[in-house]
């Protein structure tokens, strides 16, 4: 007999409802979709449906591990926790922590409470730094909130969808399905902007293929076209925005034709895209009296550049110019990559604000200090990429890393590995002994999503329950419980009341989180049980939650135009030695660095070597055939993969997913240079060279 447990998918940020079918041996036998779930409406993708077997993989860490004389030895929880507590007390003042966008809101909330209250620092961050920090930065400046403004249902009510620098078919498959449903059944227009031809291009009305790093030129060109053709939403601009004149004068500096020359997209296509976005023709079945809306949806193609924040500004300017915010069927959506990257930021695992994106000023911090009974640090902490770089200066000497593997996700991995190796003390808390964990002094075994209670918050701000379906594997424990144990041991030494870290359940942690974050104050486990997922803002217990933001006002009052200009396309551009542009991203059958999906046999059966997409013209120069083993070089490293010769990439470009397979990963090649404001690395552009892997001449033959 199997039993069923409703939960939330642990992969991408779509947050699909899953129903785990568990057998008597506590193994997940089948994952069902959940038609009642409003985010996924009965859909799943291959990873959610078939990708949860990692939970019972034999590689799961079974016990705490302590490194002695360079080797890990199994330890009891008490031994490991005592050691962590004692060593971390010595390291207050030069400590940093990475939280996990894979763990629950409760785990994240507890981690930032531990870091701020016990370690006395705001040096806490997570992988949002590497994906959407420029989007959040730009949205906070221009709108006053860093979250997706709309809901997935808006893609099905829009008259036009503009997909920029993202590949939902691979990375957010259920969102791609919802978009296809709109396009197929309602005639919704689709504009795809991507240097690479993605699967959604099959249904696109327009496909713009700009040169890497020229997004600002393209979107300023679209803005100029909207202004030239008088398609701007004047009442919206006058009533709800500021800074319009400065924006107009910046955009006025270049004509559409000049922008076209820079980005390589024909001027006619820029104008056509501008018209479709600003004034889309009404989709079939648009209710009488509603203005046709456009959804602006983007991914890492916008953000992972040294001008990532400028790119995001240029997109938000377009949304303001066309008034595509605050109504059904429009809005701005940065697609989130991890199951709880929205929640991890909401819970305060970012260096520049408290839970709920509240600043360190008196008004916001005092309720925290009163509830927690001690003073909190008030200066912004180091961002994730800076924490790693600051190991070199000695500003960071100890780290506590939960559910993240920076030695696959950081750029220029040889450099990052040297830095992590130089730490005095490293604690890693995770499911598997991955590249970063191998370098740790103490490894603590954490529960997977299937072994604990909690909540995830998805890309449309929907807080959803995660429910314990199986017993913990080995001695694994939920992250929040482990952090509480460390914190209670350290509390007396840090002048904190140990009772601050005594919770009977994940629900109690959530209650404290909801009390301190006004946007979710009205959400409780009891309501989630009764109503299913609820979208924040939900300020009170009788509030139904919010489908789309900015209906009447912006959190900062009026929205602000931020003029931006196209600068150098990238820090490193092709030259004679490295003649190609290397672009990185993801594929359907693996998830990010692959720490999890490498441990799902079926996914490995689908893709077991890194595919390197190369244009036929470049392949022929290098004498590479489709399927050949190849080596890709940059100034920082090399990696092996298998050639996929395809005109989906432009001549002069390579595309490589950043999953690590057969020991090879794109991040050995990527460039550790950063966007000034958000400190995101430039994963999307570096100079590279491709060669066919040389046959090794048999050195010797074994005698029979």
């Amino acid at each position, binding site marked *: 007999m199997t039993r069923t447990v409703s939960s939330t998918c642990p992969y991408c940020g779509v947050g699909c409802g899953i129903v785990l*079918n568990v057998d008597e041996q506590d193994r997940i036998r*089948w994952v*069902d*979709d959940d*038609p009642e779930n409003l985010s996924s409406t*009965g*859909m*799943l*993708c*291959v990873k959610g*449906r*078939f990708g949860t077997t990692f939970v019972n993989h034999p590689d799961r860490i079974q016990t705490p591990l302590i490194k002695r004389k360079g080797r890990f030895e199994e330890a009891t929880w008490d031994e490991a926790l005592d050691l962590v507590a004692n060593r971390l007390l010595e390291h207050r003042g030069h400590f940093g922590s990475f939280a996990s966008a894979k763990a629950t809101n409760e785990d994240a909330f507890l981690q930032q409470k531990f870091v701020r209250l016990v370690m006395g620092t705001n040096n806490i961050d997570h992988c949002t730094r590497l994906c959407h920090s420029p989007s959040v930065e730009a949205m906070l400046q221009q709108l006053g909130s860093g979250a997706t403004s709309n809901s997935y249902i808006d893609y099905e009510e829009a008259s036009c969808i503009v997909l920029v620098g993202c590949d939902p*078919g691979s990375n957010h*498959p259920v969102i791609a*399905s919802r978009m*296809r*449903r709109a396009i*197929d059944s309602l005639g919704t227009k689709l504009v795809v902007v991507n240097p690479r031809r993605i699967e959604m291009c099959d249904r696109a009305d327009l496909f713009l293929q700009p040169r890497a790093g020229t997004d600002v030129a393209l979107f300023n060109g679209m803005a100029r076209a909207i202004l030239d053709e008088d398609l701007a939403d004047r009442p919206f601009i006058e009533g709800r925005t500021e800074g319009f004149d400065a924006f107009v004068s910046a955009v006025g500096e270049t004509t559409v034709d000049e922008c076209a020359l820079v980005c390589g997209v024909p001027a006619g296509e820029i104008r056509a895209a501008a018209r479709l976005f600003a004034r889309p023709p009404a989709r079939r079945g648009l209710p009488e009296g509603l203005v046709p809306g456009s959804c602006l949806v983007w991914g890492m193609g916008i953000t992972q550049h040294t001008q990532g924040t400028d790119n995001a500004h240029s997109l938000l300017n377009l949304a303001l110019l066309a008034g595509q915010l605050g109504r059904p069927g429009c809005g701005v959506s940065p697609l989130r990559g991890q199951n709880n990257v929205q929640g991890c930021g909401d819970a305060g695992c970012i260096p520049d604000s408290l839970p709920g994106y509240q600043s360190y000023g008196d008004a916001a911090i005092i309720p925290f200090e009163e509830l927690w009974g001690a003073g909190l640090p008030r200066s912004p902490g180091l961002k994730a990429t800076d924490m790693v770089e600051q190991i070199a200066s000695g500003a960071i000497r100890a780290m506590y890393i939960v559910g993240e593997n920076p030695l696959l996700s950081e750029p220029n991995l040889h450099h990052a590995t040297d830095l992590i190796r130089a730490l005095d003390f490293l604690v890693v808390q995770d499911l598997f002994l991955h590249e970063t964990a191998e370098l740790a002094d103490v490894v603590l075994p954490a529960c997977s999503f299937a072994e604990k209670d909690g909540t995830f918050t998805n890309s449309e701000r929907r807080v959803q329950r995660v429910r314990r379906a199986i017993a913990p594997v080995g001695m694994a424990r939920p992250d929040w419980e482990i952090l509480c144990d460390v914190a209670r041991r350290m509390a007396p030494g840090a002048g904190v009341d140990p009772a601050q870290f005594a919770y009977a359940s994940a629900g109690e942690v959530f209650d404290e989180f909801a009390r301190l974050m006004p946007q979710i104050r009205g959400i409780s486990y009891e309501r989630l049980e009764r109503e299913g997922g609820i979208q924040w803002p939900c300020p009170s217990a009788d509030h139904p939650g919010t489908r789309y933001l900015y209906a009447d006002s912006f959190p900062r009052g009026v929205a602000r135009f931020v003029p931006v200009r196209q600068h150098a396309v990238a820090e490193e551009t092709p030259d004679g030695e490295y003649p190609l542009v290397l672009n990185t991203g993801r594929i*359907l059958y693996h998830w990010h660095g692959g720490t999890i999906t490498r441990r799902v*046999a*079926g*996914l490995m*059966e*689908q893709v077991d070597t890194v595919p390197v997409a190369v244009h036929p013209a470049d392949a022929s120069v290098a004498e590479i055939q489709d399927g050949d083993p190849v080596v890709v070089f940059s100034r920082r490293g090399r990696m092996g993969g298998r050639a996929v010769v395809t005109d989906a990439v432009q001549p002069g470009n390579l595309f490589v997913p950043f999953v690590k397979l057969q020991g090879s990963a794109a991040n050995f090649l990527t460039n550790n240079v950063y966007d000034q404001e958000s400190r995101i690395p430039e994963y999307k552009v570096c100079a590279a060279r491709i060669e066919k892997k040389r046959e090794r001449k048999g050195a010797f033959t074994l005698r029979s």
Partner: protein
Amino acid sequence: MNLNGRSVEAAGSLLDAVLAAGIALPHLCKDDNLPVIGACRTCLVEADGRIVAACSTPAAGVQECATDSERAVRIRRGVLELTAAMQSRAGGAAGGPRSAESSEAYASHAPRPGQHDVRTGTHADLSNPFFSFHEDACILCARCVTACQELQHIGAIGIAGRGHTARVTPGAGVSFRESICTSCGSCVAACPTSALRPKG
């Protein structure tokens, strides 16, 4: 509406009313999560003296509906005998997440074996790492096709051929692995037999 002698609200389809009243009725091609297909005829009921498919008949306007009349049960048994004849594997075998739907239909209606020639399709596709397809258990209800087309909007599978040669396929001469299938598994979740079943 009067349903099996009880007064019930006539909302949605007759099948909706029947299920809402807690009455068991086979509906092998109707998935809770998918639009009406109306292909399998296993939900036939007697409504105001006519035999109709409950899934595609609106309840509004029907005065008397019986799922348990001698005539309705007899005709459903006949349909299930035809259904069973499509499967060379007796009862469709267990192993799919929804295969209880067909085995419960057979158990409750006791179709007599050997009433019709058994369809001979024996194609099996084991190419996908996550699930397999077995034609000998397929009843051509089209739930898998509908899930692929109208839920996920992928369109990787269809029904090719007619009559005795009809079969579910990811394309002529193409295996699941070679097709545009993204392995989302919605077809497996929809299958009321074990024609599509998860591996392992």
